[in-house]
């Protein structure tokens, strides 16, 4: 069934996806809020940048990250001068790559759900003595719960499924940077189809289940549709 290195790859993938999703929710939420409400002209530039990973081949993103994060790259050497190590071929490098690569999958659903909200409700909350942060947490956030669910699941699933970026900046070190998709590739290369089936089939099932849950939940409780 699953070899020891398969289980390591599975665990690593899970850790990577969770870490990436949490980081994206933390930083993606204010970014999505800003994109939904700002009227600045340069907003379009930021929107385009956020959407780049949707159209760019992952190898292109991976290539530039490799250069940036490498021992001689500007970010990599900054890490070294601060007493750390360059993030390439490490878990930290995978996290940085995944965060950038999955960014639009988290930011776009959040931005859409913030933009769809009735602005009147935030005004009401303000007249009811809620300060700006309180309004965000007590009104905007709960009203965006569908957006958060969609964003989390898409961010998680997309990170689990990535291949190109990881291969470029992570390499293929079992236990350190060998994620599920790369382990599958390895098995296929070595003609171990039975092993590949276990991982590939499992991934397919997991992804389908997650998406099914999101769509079912959003359909059942979409705001405004319960009203006759």
């Amino acid at each position, binding site marked *: 069934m699953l070899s020891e290195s398969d289980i390591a790859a599975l665990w690593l993938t899970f850790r990577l996806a969770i870490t990436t999703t949490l980081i994206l929710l933390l930083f993606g939420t204010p970014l999505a809020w800003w994109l939904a409400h700002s009227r600045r002209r340069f907003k379009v530039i930021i929107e385009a940048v956020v959407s780049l990973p949707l159209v760019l081949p992952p190898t292109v993103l991976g290539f530039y990250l490799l250069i940036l994060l490498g021992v001689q790259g500007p970010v990599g050497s900054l890490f070294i001068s601060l007493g750390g190590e360059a993030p390439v071929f490490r878990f930290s490098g995978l996290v940085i790559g995944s965060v950038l690569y999955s960014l639009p999958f988290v930011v776009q659903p959040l931005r859409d759900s913030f933009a769809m909200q009735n602005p009147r*409700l935030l005004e009401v909350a303000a*007249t009811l003595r809620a300060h700006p942060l309180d309004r965000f947490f007590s009104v905007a956030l709960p009203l965006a719960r569908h957006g958060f669910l969609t964003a989390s699941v898409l961010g998680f699933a997309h990170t689990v499924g990535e291949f190109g970026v990881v291969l470029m900046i992570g390499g293929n070190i079992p236990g350190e940077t060998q994620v599920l998709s790369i382990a599958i590739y390895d098995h296929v290369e070595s003609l171990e189809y039975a092993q590949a089936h276990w991982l590939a089939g499992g991934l397919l099932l997991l992804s389908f289940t997650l998406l099914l849950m999101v769509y079912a939940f959003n359909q059942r409780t979409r705001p405004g549709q319960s009203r006759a």
Partner: protein
Amino acid sequence: MSLQIRYQLQRGAFALDVDVTLPAKGISALFGPSGCGKTTCLRCIAGLEKPQQGLLTLGEQCWQDSTRAHFIPVHQRAVGYVFQDAALFPHLNVEANLLYAYRRLGKRPANIKPDAIIDLLRLSTLLPRSVDNLSGGEQQRVAIGRALLANPDLLLMDEPLSALDAASKAEIMPCLEQLHDELSIPILYVSHSADEVARLADNIVLLENGQVQAQGKTSDIFTRLDLAPAQRSEASAIIEAQVESHDEEFALTRLAFSGRHITLPALALDKDQSVRIIIHARDVSLALEHQLNSSILNILPVEVEAISAINAAQMLVRLDAGGQKLLSRITRKSANVLGIKPRQRLYAQVKSVSLL
């Protein structure tokens, strides 16, 4: 205590220029046609808009003074705001909606308690319900309760009845009248409906194209011949009167105001209770003498104050009845025959009176 509002705001072709001082008690109405700047003015008072030039004080509190760049943000102003659409929070049930501001009062005094409001607005059966299966009238009652529980020093209401059907209006109107009678919070009420204003407002600020046209007591503004309310076909006078006695035999109630009496079909009201009555200009005819041989019960001695022509055939006459004003619509021919002129003493024959 008074509410001083001075705003100048330019937005495209629209300019708002308002400078009024209102008594900080009872209900004051910002009244005028759609697009005259009423809602903008109300939003400025709440702090939802920031006019370039503005001064806003309520008693001792100064909420905005642009000359010293002073602007208190919305959530720090002790206002309650009732929007045209109830705008209840869809993710909270009725009770949580009601208590939203109340739970945020902190150390501020909470004189208005949830129990009292739930009673006053008859909300007890609605508390656990989700807000999206409430009727329009129920939603608006919850919204009013929610705003009141913020314990505001000033309650702002932006056309709270205009989105409701007649039945819901009839359900909310008594609540608003009760608020007026039982709470000491001043209310600023935006409306384009003369009926609502006549029924609720003590004072009126008449707005047109962002400018204040007139300001004063509702009964005065409604009977001023030069202003829009008197120029409507429904032109009417509003009179505050007290219940004086009941005539059981004929099932009538006698009301008194400034030494005069009005009789109307029996009302289920206690003696000395104050009532507001409305007398339409079309229901008042004029006579030189007190006619005794008439079926009209209500004949009041009046003095002509002013006359103006409505059209080629009709005139509108403003009358003084011991301090309270009446309007009468008569034909130009009758005005000529009677020789009606200012300061003339006449008898007003009132065909119909309705209670507001």
